[in-house]
């Protein structure tokens, strides 16, 4: 420290660089520690990449399905102009398509929102009560069907008679699409019939009890204007055929 002036300058420069490096590391290291929940173990990085690639492919495929459907509707509209018979058939096809769940639907209905508890379970709690299980979604969907829902969706996935809702660890797969809370279950139909019947059903009461006791999110709203997306499934029969 008591050396000549040149040494002192070098000392200060080195000190400055070292302090900067230390501060930089400190700030950089602080960040991943804060976001630890999102840090992916290294061996999974490859799998995550593959999965993200597949998901991007899925999104592109969904867009392609929608585009092709629009094209079909365009062709039909053009052909419908040729004769009255074709127009009537086209009309019929569109009705059937709506019944098969292949069109977007709009109308009045109810929305049930379910989400995991914001509270962290203590050691004496059973953590199962703090999360939304696939069974809850199936039960709510069944209630909606029972009370006359015309069209049902969970988040952006249309629910048809054969739509699978299954548990896959911390997430729920609906139509093989990954979903995480909140789960917004929309049903089109008679608002009052659906709303009142569901809110008075024993199962919904149990969920409300869990809400009060464990802090899960569980709400039911009647709404005058809702929309439910079209199913992306093709109407192809794979395992069953119509008996003659």
């Amino acid at each position: 420290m008591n050396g000549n002036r040149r040494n002192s300058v070098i000392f200060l420069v080195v000190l400055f660089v070292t302090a900067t490096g230390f501060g930089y590391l400190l700030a950089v290291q602080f960040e991943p520690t804060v976001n630890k929940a999102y840090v992916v173990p290294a061996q999974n990085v490859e799998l995550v990449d593959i999965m993200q690639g597949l998901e991007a492919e899925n999104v592109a495929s969904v867009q392609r399905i929608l585009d092709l459907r629009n094209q079909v509707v365009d062709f039909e509209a053009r052909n419908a102009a040729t004769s009255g018979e074709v127009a009537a058939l086209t009309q019929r096809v569109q009705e059937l398509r709506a019944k098969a769940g292949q069109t977007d639907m709009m109308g009045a209905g109810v929305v049930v929102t379910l989400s995991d508890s914001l509270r962290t379970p203590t050691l004496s709690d059973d953590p199962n009560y703090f999360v939304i299980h696939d069974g809850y979604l199936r039960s709510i969907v069944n209630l909606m069907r029972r009370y006359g829902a015309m069209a049902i969706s969970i988040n952006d996935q249309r629910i048809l008679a054969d739509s699978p809702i299954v548990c896959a660890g911390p997430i729920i797969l609906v139509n093989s699409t990954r979903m995480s809370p909140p789960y917004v279950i929309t049903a089109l139909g008679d608002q009052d019939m659906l709303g009142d019947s569901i809110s008075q059903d024993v199962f919904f009461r149990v969920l409300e009890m869990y809400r009060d006791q464990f802090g899960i999110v569980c709400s039911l709203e009647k709404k005058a204007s809702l929309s439910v997306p079209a199913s992306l499934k093709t109407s192809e029969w794979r395992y069953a055929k119509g008996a003659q």
Partner: protein
Amino acid sequence: MVGFVTVCGLVLGIVIGILRPVHIPAIYSKYVGLALLAGMDSILGGIKGYLKDTFDATVFFSGFLINSLVAALLGYLGDQLGIDLYLAAVVVFGSRMYQNIAIIRRVLLKKEA
């Protein structure tokens, strides 16, 4: 002057780190943490030396850099060998930090008194 330069460098480093963060992969994050721990130990050692008038810049810098590097490398080596060597670094540097803090506290208290 020395204090001023240090604080400026530290603040600059933190600001750069916040503005332009390099994402450290989770597996290396542990070793960077070790290097930081060793660095903090050296800094406390430096403050102690300064207060006791035994501060030596060469010792301080070599300790700072080499301890940081060695701590990170030993942690890595330990992981490769399947031994939790990083625990050794955590214990050694951690306890030394406490000792240094205690000494600094005592020196400061004596000066105040």
